[in-house]
């Protein structure tokens, strides 16, 4: 099953991936990371197609995609 892994310490919460995800399964987490950003999280991993769009738009190499 395709999935993404977010490195929450790299993520700066820019939300680009949220917009880019065709499945619309990403959102910013409630909690802060140590830099004070709300990292992104996948709230519906089942739906992930592994299309890598989220990773492509991420300026911070915070997302890895597995398929």
């Amino acid at each position, binding site marked *: 099953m395709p999935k993404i892994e977010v490195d929450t310490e790299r993520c*700066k919460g*820019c939300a*680009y991936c949220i917009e880019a995800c065709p499945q619309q399964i990403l959102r910013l987490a409630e909690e802060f990371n140590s830099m004070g950003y709300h990292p992104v999280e996948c709230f519906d991993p089942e739906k992930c197609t592994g299309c*890598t769009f989220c990773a*492509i738009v*991420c*300026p911070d*190499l915070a997302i*890895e995609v597995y*398929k």
Partner: protein
Amino acid sequence: MERVFTKPVAMKEPRTLYCPGCGHGVAHRLVAELIDEFGLRERAIGIAPVGCSVFADLYWNFDVISTAHGRAPAAATGMTRANPDCFVVSYQGDGDLAAIGTAEIIHAANRGENFVTVFVNNAIYGMTGGQMAPTTLVGQKSTTCQLGRDPAIMGHPIRVCELLQTLGGVAYIARGALESPKTIMKTKSYLRKAFEYALDRRGFTLVEMLSPCPTNWGMTPPQAMTWLRENMLDYYPLGVVRDVGAEEKAQKPVAA
């Protein structure tokens, strides 16, 4: 399970110091991915220009040189001429390339120097805190045009690709945007072409990348991306501006 997207080898581990949503991160990664793809890491030299990307050496996992403001094309010329075996990626911001470095980029282009230029156009001086750049749009506000750029006294934003493409030494010029998966992938394909041409020593290559600077635009990253889409794409049309390879093909009579 296969990892289908991860950090290229030509990128180092550390997180960037860039602001959230800054386009430089994507631009760096595209360069690194192609360095990997072409197997150039050993002989590649990246230029860390004077601008927010001045610390590119912290991120790129190959040799890096930091040059004087605007003089990246001259230093790149010096490197590729002295050692044609090295592969130079000159990376410049819009202030660096289109203001202080105007003469250097024009003459490097005209001489047809064989390095690749990545031109990150964020319509602002990022590093110094948001001053007007040569590419700042009409009406856009900055710390040095607080009422918005007034073309009557500040001139119109300069379209760098269109300006350079008339020059003799140009092999390839294209404009992409770091705006969506689609434009990013397209931009990467432009850059791949530029790499190919530079490796074939066909002359000057440049890929412009329209890039958000949320901080100095005074916006959140999503707002910045929307602004880029709604304002920059119009004034700076995406696409291949010059491709001598395509021109040659077009000119060749079709074999009967």
